[in-house]
């Protein structure tokens, strides 16, 4: 951002009369320094933020070491801090949510752009975006009231019958659990994935589409060979934003996942994620427990940052070749 700002200003300077140059030079400097100040302030806040969380959790890291990441038991009451079950539940629920949300979201985006007539398109888009405006606690309630009975009576028995009650659809069918959390998360991240991939695909130049058709391509070939590959980086961005939201989602997950920090045995297991554990336990945490919760926060931040970096690398790889 800094670089492009500078380029922008230097370009304007270059093309002006000496008089205008002086006048604009003054206001340009003002803007440059204001923007720099804002940017530095923002970086400083971010650094302070990371520092304080890490600092807060430092006792836990020095005391527990690697068992914080690899320990399979999370029991703060007994001062046992192994976050692996929480990490697994977080990652699994997000992955399964993506498994639902990505194909449905992409399909919805394509239907919005290519199938619906323009007027319906606007209405449907608005509805999808409305989904994003629903507070997550409402999603949680909806999960409890509507989805728990439905999952336990209909969906999970059916899933279990698919594998004959074996992994990954094994164990007690309680309705609540990792599977339900994934479904709720999928619904919650759907609007993000739909809205972004819709915008990315709609922004593709029309002549790509026409160029392919003019070579004798069918509509499905245009879609598979031209549209989706060209929109790949934007779609990856949409997915990573959705994943980021799912990893960090707290209250809705807390309400439907069962709240039991044990190693997940199947998708029907009750569990607890990093975020939901922090939210449930911080109210009655001892200083020692608080440090451990800080460590969970650090792990969570690292996970979301990791997703971000991965997405960026994937995007750079595809767009680096394409433009």
């Amino acid at each position: 951002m800094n670089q492009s700002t500078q380029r922008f200003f230097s370009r304007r300077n270059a093309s002006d009369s000496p008089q205008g140059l002086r006048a604009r030079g003054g206001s340009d400097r003002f803007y440059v320094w204001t923007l720099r100040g804002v940017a530095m302030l923002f970086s400083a806040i971010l650094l302070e933020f990371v520092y304080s969380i890490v600092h807060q959790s430092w006792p836990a890291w020095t005391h527990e070491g690697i068992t914080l990441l690899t320990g399979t038991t999370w029991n703060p009451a007994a001062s046992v801090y192994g976050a692996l079950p929480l990490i697994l539940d977080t990652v699994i629920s997000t992955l399964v949510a993506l498994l639902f949300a990505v194909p449905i979201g992409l399909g919805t985006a394509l239907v919005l752009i290519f199938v619906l007539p323009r007027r319906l398109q606007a209405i449907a888009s608005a509805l999808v975006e409305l989904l994003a405006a629903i507070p997550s606690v409402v999603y949680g309630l909806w999960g409890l009231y509507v989805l728990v009975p439905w999952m336990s009576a209909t969906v999970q028995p059916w899933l279990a019958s698919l594998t004959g009650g074996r992994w990954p659809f094994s164990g007690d069918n309680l309705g609540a659990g990792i599977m339900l959390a994934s479904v709720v998360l999928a619904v919650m991240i759907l609007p993000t994935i739909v809205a972004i991939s819709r915008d990315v695909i709609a922004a593709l130049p029309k002549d790509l589409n026409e160029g392919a058709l003019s070579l004798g391509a069918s509509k499905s070939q245009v879609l598979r060979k031209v549209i989706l590959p060209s929109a790949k980086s934007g779609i990856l961005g949409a997915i990573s934003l959705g994943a980021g939201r799912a990893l960090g989602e707290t209250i809705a997950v807390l309400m439907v996942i069962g709240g039991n920090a044990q190693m997940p045995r199947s998708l029907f297991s009750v569990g607890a994620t990093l975020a939901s554990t922090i939210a449930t336990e911080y109210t009655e945490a001892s200083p020692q427990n608080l440090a451990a919760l800080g460590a969970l926060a650090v792990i969570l931040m690292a996970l979301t940052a990791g997703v971000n970096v991965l997405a960026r690398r994937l995007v750079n790889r595809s767009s680096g070749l394409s433009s």
Partner: protein
Amino acid sequence: MSDGHDAVGNNPGVLKESSITPVLQLRRVNVSFSGRVAVRDVSFDVAPNKITSLIGPSGSGKTTILRSLNRLHDLTKGAKVDGDLLLDGVDIYKGGIATMLLRSRIGMVFQRPNPFPTLSIYDNVVSGLRFNGVRKKSLLDEAAESALISAALWDSVSSRMKVHASTLSGGEQQRLCIARALAVEPEILLMDEPTSSLDPVSTQRIEELMTELKNRVTMVIVTHNMQQAARVSDDCAFLLMADDRAGELIEFGPTDKIFHDPSDARTLDYVHGRFG
């Protein structure tokens, strides 16, 4: 009947007693968008292995006519094409030709070079063949080489076929698009202002290329550049926008005649730059 004095409705474009069988015939073609007429009553013939240019001011319907020839208007909701458009005597709308097949027989090059940005040079050139189901590597290789040679691009890209097409210059990208269209071996190549986004040197190379390609393919070109029409085309159609904003064919004939001895005063005014 062949002259433009009584232009509208009297098939001004049909060449009198032409000895050559036209490859493409337009008879009283109308194009409308949601009821608004954009092109009215246009008739002319496209002779094989010639370049036919469509000239006229903005809004006169040049591109609209061009896009009706490979049914690109099918994509536009509310678009309607009437009249007869015959490819080798078979109507391209009513004659039962599959649209995909039609488009592989009538290729198109666009105003802005539009190579597929995520594909390599090689994959761009063979994309049309792949769309049409060709899988055999040796066939694809052969077609890619010959199309790139035809498009005068082989020498500069043969060593970097795996590189992304977007690394090429604008002129090279447009030649790549021509190569991509040629690889499918179309009978007709439609060109919609193919040089309007290019620099003069690239423009000249494309024009030279068009002349070289005449023995392989029939071309129909829309151009805003009258010198270009005069330089490269054999036949020329001049269109104007009528009072109701519908495009009409004013005059059609050999390019020499249109530019030096037109039948209609408006043609003379236009080619001499008095309006438009």
